[in-house]
Each structure stands twice: as structure tokens, then as C-alpha cells.
């Protein structure tokens, strides 16, 4: 069976699996909630501050009138998605490859001539598809509410900042593909991805290196206020994209040698 038809057949199987196991539904619901939460939190801020005003006053803080703008909503977006959104995605897909190897469900299909590369490609594509769908859905909801209640034009470069964060997510998913090519369990895969994440953050503390690191893409505060330009992020974007491709390519020979 050719790689292409194997890829499409297996992608169909993956989507059916996500749908029937209910994981797709949960994933979409959570990302819709993540999307709604951002404008909702912004909207509720004045009310929250007012309700806390008395207790704050006794501790010496005076609450002045606070005007909410679209900025508050977008700040929430760039706070929630890199944390909860990414964590959710990585945890959901941590065992996407390894569980099949562990259970042995691939063996009958591989014995029929399905190519391992087609399997890996279909799984990678499905992960990217689901991540993108959830992510941009969340983005769309935040965008629509923020524009409806306030005005998105006061926020700079939110679309580019969102692209950067999405790309960072893609990189983490490619890490899953890479670690899954040799790891035996989802725990090992998650550990690997976690280690990469921590390593990037530690390296990021070294002042000069930080802007070359993919994790730089998750720091969008200055972009939103217009203090930074998209061009400042070009190195991080290039490195993230290149690293993703390298991880995928590196996983091919390892996967093909893997014992199933």
C-alpha cells in the first residue's frame, strides 16, 4: 500500500478514534471555554475590583475607576493558552503513539503492509489538526467577543502573537513525535517534552540567548502594547519552525527501527 493512501486511511482511523472515545469533544469544549474565559474575565474585572474595594481599602489600597479594554481580554488569552491550553494538548497527545505500540494494535495493520511512516505522518497530522482547530477556535471566540464589547484596534499585533504561540504548540507536538519514536510509555514522552520546556525556560534566563529560543514566542506582552515588532521575533520563529522539521525528520529512522 502506498504511503499516501496509508496516510489517508490511518488519518480517518485516528479521527474516528478521537471522536468515538469522546476526547475530541472534551478537547473542543475545553478550548471553547478557554476562549470564552478571556473576555469574560476582562468583563468581570471592574465588578471584581468593586466587590473587593472595601477589603482592599482597609489594607491601604484605593481602587480607582478601572476602564476595561480589549487589551485585558487579549492579555488573558496570552496568559491562559500558553499554560492551560498547551498543557491540555500535550497531556492529551502524550500517549498518542506509545499506547498503540504498547497495546500492539498496529501489528495486524503493519503486517498488511501499512507503512510505519504513514502511521507516524497520520498521527502527526491529526495532532496538528486538532491543536490548530482548538487553538484557532479559542482565538476566534476571544477575537469576536473582544471586538464586540470593546475594540480590538487598541491592541497591536495580536494575530502575529497568536501565530507565534501556535507555532510554539506545533514545536511541542513535534517533540511528542520525536520522543514517541523511542519512548515506551506516555509518561516517558511527557517527561521528555517537560524536560525540553524546562530547559528552554532555564536557558531563557540567560539574557542574550532568550530571544533565539522558541519559548520567546510565548512572551507576547510587548507585542500587544506595540513596544516590540513582529520582526523582533523572526529568529525565534525560524528556529522553532526549523526545530520542528528536524525533530520530525529525526524520528523517521528511529521509528522504522523500533521493535513492535
Amino acid at each position: 500500500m502506498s504511503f499516501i493512501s496509508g496516510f489517508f486511511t490511518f488519518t480517518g482511523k485516528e479521527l474516528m478514534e478521537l471522536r468515538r472515545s469522546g476526547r475530541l469533544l472534551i478537547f473542543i469544549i475545553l478550548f471553547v471555554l478557554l476562549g470564552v474565559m478571556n473576555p469574560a474575565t476582562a468583563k468581570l474585572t471592574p465588578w471584581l475590583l468593586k466587590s473587593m474595594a472595601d477589603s482592599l481599602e482597609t489594607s491601604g489600597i484605593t481602587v480607582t475607576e478601572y476602564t476595561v479594554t480589549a487589551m485585558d481580554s487579549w492579555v488573558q488569552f496570552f496568559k491562559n493558552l500558553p499554560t492551560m491550553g498547551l498543557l491540555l494538548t500535550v497531556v492529551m497527545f502524550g500517549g498518542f503513539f506509545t499506547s498503540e505500540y504498547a497495546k500492539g494494535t498496529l501489528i495486524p495493520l503493519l503486517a498488511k503492509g501499512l507503512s510505519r511512516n504513514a502511521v507516524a505522518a497520520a498521527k502527526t497530522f491529526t495532532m496538528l489538526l486538532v491543536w490548530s482547530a482548538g487553538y484557532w477556535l479559542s482565538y476566534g471566540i476571544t477575537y469576536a467577543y473582544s471586538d464586540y464589547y470593546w475594540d480590538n484596534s487598541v491592541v497591536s499585533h495580536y494575530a502575529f502573537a497568536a501565530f507565534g504561540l501556535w507555532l510554539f504548540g506545533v514545536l511541542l507536538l513535534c517533540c511528542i513525535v520525536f520522543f514517541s519514536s523511542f519512548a515506551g510509555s506516555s509518561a516517558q514522552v511527557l517527561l521528555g517534552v517537560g524536560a525540553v520546556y524546562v530547559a528552554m525556560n532555564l536557558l531563557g534566563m540567560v539574557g542574550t540567548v532568550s530571544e533565539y529560543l522558541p519559548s520567546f514566542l510565548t512572551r507576547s506582552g510587548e507585542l500587544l502594547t506595540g513596544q516590540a515588532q513582529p520582526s523582533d521575533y523572526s529568529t525565534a520563529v525560524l528556529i522553532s519552525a526549523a526545530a520542528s522539521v528536524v525533530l520530525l525528520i529525526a524520528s523517521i529512522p528511529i521509528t522504522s527501527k523500533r521493535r513492535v
Partner: protein
Amino acid sequence: MSNVLEITGLCKHFGSKQVLSGVTLSVPENCVFGFVGRNGAGKTTTMKSVIGLLKPDGGEITVCGERVTYGGAKTNRFIGYLPDVPEFYGYMTAREYLALCGKVAGMKSSEIKERTDELLRLVGLSEEKHRIKGYSRGMKQRLGIAQALINRPKLLICDEPTSALDPVGRREILDILKDAGKQTSVFFSTHILTDVERICDRVAFLEGGKVALSGNIEEIRRQYADTAVEIQPENPADAAILAEQFADGTLCDGCFVLENASQENAEELLKCILENHIAVSRFERKEPDLEKMFMEVIGE
């Protein structure tokens, strides 16, 4: 008659353990071939090498005349494989799973539908509407045979298809395999010798990483024809009379046993019984059973 599967000098080790050290065997067309060996003898290793899931250290495997390569084995288009504990996608129905297998095997959808109906009838799952996750072990095993047969393979490889099943399930699987053997060659491993005796035409015993004995079951039986005659007289003392006349015979538990008895020996024994008026409660010509042969082969 050409050979569907030929294995020559297959070697494989895992770490320091040499599992296979020169396995050589061949499976002809339209034959049910039993592959017998103890647990850990290397049966699964051999089978996985045939479907290109394991990389052998040495030796050659050909399926329908084509050499098997590790990884994306092209020869798999001739093969249907049933793993020892088959695992399927529990969220699919049997029909959906067979459709997936058919697509992977590169079949047309009309062909898949037709073949699916046929196979589900064969394995007795055509009325089953539930998803696979609720299946019993026997049902999974039957579905496993159906998926292995979907693309009309020339060679059906089953890894211990009966070992985890109850007697009813075992009988069903054996009947299905016997049926399948009319259209394709079946190469199945087992450690249950009665299964081999029931359905196989040929057999190979794997021991010490090599094929210790292989061939047509009838021929092997004849070759190993340890056709002893055992006589149990009503009065145990009479056994001694027979022992006097036949020096090769032995006495055991009041019985007289003559090993490797020819037809003439047997006639002479009967004559002797008549002449000496010995009352006999049992006169038995022993058939060589596979178990005895197997024990002999593995040296126990």
C-alpha cells in the same frame, strides 16, 4: 507443488540469548502446517521474522518466491497474520475494523464489502453488532482470523491461536483454520499437540533454536513408528510365559510389552496366546502419539 514459505538457516538473538540458530523449514501450498515448540522456543520470533517485524541476524526467508525484507516487507501482501494476543481498536465494530484492514491491504470498497460478509459468516460474527471492546477472547481470536484472511492471502500465519481459549472456543478456531486450509496454506504455532493431530498435514518441532523434526505427519508417525504391542493377561503370572517366548519383550505391571513389534511379531504373539490358553483382558497395538514423539525430540 511449490512452497509458499521457505525459511533457510534463520538465526536471531536477543541480547546474549540465542533464540534461533539456523531454523530451516518449508510450507507447501494448500497445507495446514503445525509449528510446535515449548514456550520460549522461538515460535513467535520465527513468525515475526516472516512478516518482517523482526530483523533476523542471518538466514533467508522467502514467501511465494520473494525474499522477505525487514521493515516494509512487500511480501506481506501474500500473508495474513494473527498475533498471539490480537488487539484491535475497541471503538470499532467488526465490520468497520475489517473495512480498515481491507483498505490498508489496498482492496476496492465493493470487494471489501463482499469479503467482509463472507468472512464474518465464516468466523460466526455476522450477527454481532456491538463494538469490539465488549468481545470475549474467543471472539477476538475469530475476528483476528477474519482480518488475517481479508485479502485472500496465500499464507495464513497464526501465532498460538488456540492457547488461551476454552475447549469450545478452541474447537471453533480449529474448524475455521481447517476450513481456511482448503484455500490457503496455514502456518500455525502451538504447544497443544492434539490441535496438531486434529488439523495438520505437516508439522515441525522447534527445539534448541532449530527444527528438530519436520515433515508429513503420517510419515513422521511411520518413521517414529514405535509401534509397541502391549498385552495384559487376566492372570498377571501369564505374562511371564510370553516373556519366555519373546526375549525382546519386557514385563511391566503385570503386562507384557514388545517394543517395535512388526506385523509378524504381532501374529506370533497371538498364536502364542492361543497355544498357551492365556486369557487376555487387553491386547493393544500402540499408536505413536505426537506427545511421545515431541518428548523424544526435546529429549525428555
